[in-house]
């Protein structure tokens, strides 16, 4: 096991460095075109930007996020659940402050899957006026094979 249960539980409440995220118009166009949605370079943004902003502004790379949970990409971490909450429409071109933390950790054992950990984290996208525009909650599943 790459990480003890005590180390895992100590992650709960740990804040991310955070940062900022700008919904770049060209990027918004390309990301929406890639999924069959309406490409646009202005106006209300796709709520998917809440997820992209959370991951882009949490202040860690995906590899660093996995390392926090004692894992690497080679261990096969998987997306478990994802939730987007759009409290007010996000705007293409606007810059948001991103802040958040690990909110839950759970160790489970399945008959087939063996031991695995579920790490849940939540990030907020804060608009320039200080109001939270979006909340992204995600959980990753980390198989623990040894």
């Amino acid at each position: 096991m790459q990480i003890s249960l005590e180390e895992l539980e100590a992650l709960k409440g740990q804040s991310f460095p955070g940062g900022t995220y700008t919904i770049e118009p060209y990027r918004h166009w390309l990301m929406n075109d890639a999924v069959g949605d309406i490409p646009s370079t202005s106006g209300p943004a796709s709520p998917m930007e809440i997820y992209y902003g959370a991951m882009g502004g949490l202040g860690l790379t995906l590899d660093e996020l996995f390392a926090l949970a004692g894992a690497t990409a080679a261990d096969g971490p998987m997306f478990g659940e994802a939730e987007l909450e759009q409290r007010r429409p996000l705007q293409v071109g606007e810059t948001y402050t991103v802040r958040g933390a690990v909110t839950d950790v759970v160790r489970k054992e399945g008959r087939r899957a063996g031991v695995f950990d579920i790490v849940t984290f939540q990030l907020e996208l804060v608009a320039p006026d200080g109001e939270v525009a979006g909340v992204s909650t995600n959980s990753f599943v980390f198989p623990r094979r040894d």
Partner: protein
Amino acid sequence: MQIGDELEPLVIESVPAEAMKTVAALLHDPNPIHFDVESVKALGMGERPVNQGPNNMGYLVAMLGRAAGGRERIRRLRVRFLGNVFAGDRVVARGKVESIEERDGERLAEVEVWLERGDEDRVLAGTATILL
């Protein structure tokens, strides 16, 4: 919109591998399963690139945005990832209205949502709230 109504589905006839490359670059996602067929083969995952999970969510957002009259009217989306989508797959994003309620002067619909791959194989499932 009424309880029990099915939303207009969004059909992607063939998930494009090229879009996965664009998204990998834009998301700074180094995982080769999204763009390198040889890596997919080496991992025993088949012979086609694997779509990014957020792309699969994006199909549901596109479907919901059209049904709601704008993406800004999607208040919440929660999904569980149940399986992979591969390049060339046909996928259909679907939704069904489960309930409608008034809250703070707004009319909101709770919608069951899912993404089908091929013959009714659900690879993504969850719920959404949209403003009517």
